[in-house]
């Protein structure tokens, strides 16, 4: 009893101390120091002699040899910063100076090696968290071009903490720390992507990677701006398809991509065209691939072809901007067959997605309220699965209305910047053919708050989100074999807090704690029978609760001159983890084991390490590893589809125009497998690449040539459903050419 009292006293004391400490730092000061660093966005090198000007104060400084600048006695509040350098495109940034010293890091894009247009996804200033995200969770520029694959997942597969689940090359989706399906949200320019890739391994992601400017993997509190599932993450691709900034001239790119392993070819172009106060953006690409070659033969029925197009326009002025866009994505692809868990003869899938977006940002620039942003989308998604004889086996149709309104604010109760927002999603899901999930409608509404602030050497990000979900099947069926099929309502909340402490100028340590939630999908609730293409007998459970859990993550990162490293340790404890559990019952019609959706406690823990060292002039060494352990908490038995220990090791040479490198992509044997899952042997695969950029007049040519699996090694991806019949791709020569114009 006494022990409990002391514990309560200790907890309450910490809470009281924290409140007093935070309040005491809320006092206003006249004039603060504003300092920071300027780096090259491509190489992360300091930009010496960059000129930094605070426009509204008409003050300027010059960055020193370390890229560092400092302004003294700057009034608190919002300021407009312009940074210029002869070799870089001008950067315009908003920055808020708080009562204490303000420290920021800015990135400029080189003029001579222009890989992508400047993209500004947020109008908040960069924080230490943004710095860390930029270093470890963003794929952009030359690196994006080097890693470009035929799908978003294959482009990201070698990023730390990310694996790829596949069922053939086309239906590939990212897995983050062993978690997939809709626990990893796909979004475009901050708006959720509507498709069925999260519901089944044979369903593809409807995003073409070639026309993307950058890819962000969002974790931590910012996730709650888009989804309540904090333990997974968000993969956000940025194209700015509704332009938000007005350029001085027409700019864009035209390019091509080819690879030998599947005789794949792509052509694409995108352009931003300013017309007085309007900006028009257009995009078009087309891709075709044949069946893929592996070291032991051709993987039949693994072809794909897609067409992707977009047209958008925006009226831009001092008030902000208002615009609209239309996007169309058509994809036909094959799903291989003839193995356990697949249709006997494979399946051909055709899908299309049409999306209209309306978006606006209203600049307020008040003392508290900075902007109001609104984004509305209407999506029509259609998906058909054809059997080997051409007969339609299954089809799905989704009409989805989504929207959000965000208020960017600052200094409400204490010095901070943040976002308060509301969102909704109204989805109509229709099915036809040989599918045993009832048509359904669902409604989601959410309210969320995100704040970021600094206290001395501490940086904080905190967010909370409340979700209301209603899922209604087209018919009630109280006596269904899976249970009582009826309407379900969920009220869930999520929370996330991250803090970063600057131990020194270059070393930061941090912690994140979070509470995650996820509502079961329609298939997890209501599916009554086999899924044709995946040929699995997975049935739903109408009585499922919402998936919930808590997580903690510790991280340390160091960035200074020649060395960068980042170490993460995470532990996610899910009190109720939804997965399909073997019932022990065989379905009498198909003689397949029945897997029924169930919720069980599960534990995920692991580590990620990244290390880069420029050991001599333009030569660098890099290594990264990811490890995830996923188990059922009560029995300790491994969960299925958990990626093995894996990583990358590489040596690079890089100067202004030429980059060369050789990498080793490796994975350990995965023996920790579910009851009906097979282990997968480890592997080591050699790859090499070269990139060259030249500029002439207003054109920049970039060429990337990659040779993957140089030794034609036979290896298997543990998360590939076709691994039992075919390994991964054999030796592949990939060529990407992009011509940038401005």
């Amino acid at each position, binding site marked *: 009893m006494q022990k409990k009292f002391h514990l309560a006293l200790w907890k309450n004391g910490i809470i009281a101390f924290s409140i007093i400490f935070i309040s005491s730092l809320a006092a206003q000061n006249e004039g603060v120091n504003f300092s920071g660093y300027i780096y090259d966005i491509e190489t992360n090198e300091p930009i010496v002699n960059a000129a930094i000007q605070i426009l509204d104060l008409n003050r300027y400084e010059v960055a020193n040899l370390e890229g560092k600048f400092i302004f003294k006695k700057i009034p608190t509040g919002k300021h407009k910063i312009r940074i210029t350098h002869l070799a870089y495109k001008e950067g315009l940034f908003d920055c808020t100076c708080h009562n204490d010293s303000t420290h920021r890091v800015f990135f400029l894009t080189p003029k001579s090696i222009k890989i992508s247009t400047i993209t500004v996804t947020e109008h908040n200033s960069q924080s230490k968290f943004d710095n860390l995200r930029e270093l470890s969770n963003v794929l952009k520029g030359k690196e994006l071009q080097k890693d470009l694959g035929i799908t978003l997942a294959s482009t990201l597969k070698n990023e730390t903490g990310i694996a790829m689940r596949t069922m053939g090359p086309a239906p590939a989706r990212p897995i983050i720390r062993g978690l997939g399906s809709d626990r990893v949200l796909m979004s475009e320019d901050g708006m959720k992507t509507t498709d069925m890739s999260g519901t089944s391994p044979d369903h593809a992601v409807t995003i073409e990677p070639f026309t993307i400017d950058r890819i962000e993997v969002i974790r931590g509190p910012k996730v709650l701006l888009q989804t309540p599932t904090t333990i997974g993450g968000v993969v956000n691709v940025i194209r700015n398809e509704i332009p938000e900034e007005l350029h001085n001239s027409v700019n864009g790119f035209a390019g091509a991509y080819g690879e030998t392993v599947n005789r794949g070819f792509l052509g694409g172009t995108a352009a931003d065209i300013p017309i007085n106060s*309007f900006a028009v953006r257009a995009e078009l690409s087309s891709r075709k691939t044949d069946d893929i070659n592996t070291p032991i033969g051709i993987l039949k029925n693994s072809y794909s072809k897609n067409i992707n197009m977009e047209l958008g326009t925006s009226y831009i002025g001092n008030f902000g901007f208002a615009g609209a866009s239309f996007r169309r994505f058509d994809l036909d692809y094959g799903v291989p067959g003839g193995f356990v868990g697949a249709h006997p003869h494979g399946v051909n899938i055709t899908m299309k997605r049409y999306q209209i977006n309306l978006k606006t940002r209203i600049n307020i620039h008040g003392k508290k309220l900075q902007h109001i942003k609104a984004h509305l989308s209407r999506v029509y998604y259609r998906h058909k699965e054809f059997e080997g004889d051409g007969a339609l086996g299954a089809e799905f149709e989704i009409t989805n209305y989504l929207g959000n309104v965000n208020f960017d604010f600052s200094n409400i109760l204490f010095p901070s910047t943040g976002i308060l927002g509301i969102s909704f999603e109204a989805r109509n899901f229709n099915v036809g053919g*040989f599918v045993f999930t009832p048509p359904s409608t669902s409604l989601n509404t959410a309210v969320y708050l995100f704040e970021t602030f600094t206290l001395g050497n501490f940086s904080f990000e905190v967010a909370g989100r409340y979700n209301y979900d209603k899922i209604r099947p087209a018919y009630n069926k109280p006596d269904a074999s899976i249970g009582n099929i009826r309407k379900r309502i969920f009220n869930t909340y999520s929370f996330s807090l991250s803090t970063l402490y600057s131990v020194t100028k270059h070393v930061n340590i941090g912690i994140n704690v979070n509470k995650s939630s996820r509502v079961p999908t329609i298939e997890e609730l209501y599916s009554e029978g086999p899924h044709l293409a995946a040929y699995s007998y997975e049935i739903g459970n109408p009585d499922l609760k919402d998936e919930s859990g808590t997580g903690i993550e510790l991280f340390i990162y160091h960035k200074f001159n020649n060395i960068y490293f980042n170490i993460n340790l995470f532990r996610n404890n899910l009190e109720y983890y939804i997965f399909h559990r073997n019932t022990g019952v065989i379905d009498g019609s198909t*003689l397949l084991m029945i897997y029924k959706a169930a919720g069980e406690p599960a534990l995920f823990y692991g580590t990620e390490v990244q290390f880069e060292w420029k050991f001599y002039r333009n030569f660098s060494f890099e290594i990264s590893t990811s490890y995830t352990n996923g188990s059922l908490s009560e029995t300790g038995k491994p969960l299925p589809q958990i990626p093995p220990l894996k990583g990358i090791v590489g040596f690079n040479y890089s100067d202004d125009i030429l980059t060369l490198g050789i990498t080793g992509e490796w994975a350990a044997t995965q023996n920790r497998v579910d009851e009906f899952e097979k282990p997968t042997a480890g592997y080591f695969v050699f790859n090499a690449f070269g990139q060259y950029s030249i500029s002439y007049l207003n054109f920049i040519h970039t060429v990337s040539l990659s040779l993957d699996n140089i030794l034609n090694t036979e290896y298997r991806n543990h998360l590939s459903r076709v691994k039992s019949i075919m390994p991964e791709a054999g030796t592949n020569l990939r060529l990407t050419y992009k011509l940038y114009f401005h």
Partner: protein
Amino acid sequence: MNFLKKNRDKILALLVLITILQLTAACEDDPIIPQEEHFKAIGMVFYTSGIETARIEKGITDDTLFVKAGKLSEHYNIKFISEDGKIVPPPTDGKKLAWEFDDTSVASVWQHEGEEGSFEFHLKGLKEGETNIEFFIMHHDHHDYRSGKIPVKVIK
């Protein structure tokens, strides 16, 4: 003309917006086909001259199908066992019977001309020996039902 010049930007934006909306028009005029019924059976019963001679349920059987080498067996009719244990006639909505032998050199299936894919058949003994046969109800390219393996014995 002055009006056009003055409002050129707005007119252009309106044209782009109309183009955007038109691109979506009539793209969604593709009605979804109704969900199809699955033939739910958990077993098969074999009849010759109206008498039950073999059955298999949830992949388990104690019975064997017999045929003499070089000859056709008696005529088999098939009915199915539903999920609630009742005997039901075969489907009549275009679904077909298919089969697979472990060893195709021991026995084969013979059907009257014009009745291919129906739920009636004869076994044909090719040579003395034993094998297994598995039956399927085919719906297009996939099977709604599979029986599990039934022993087949070809005798002198």
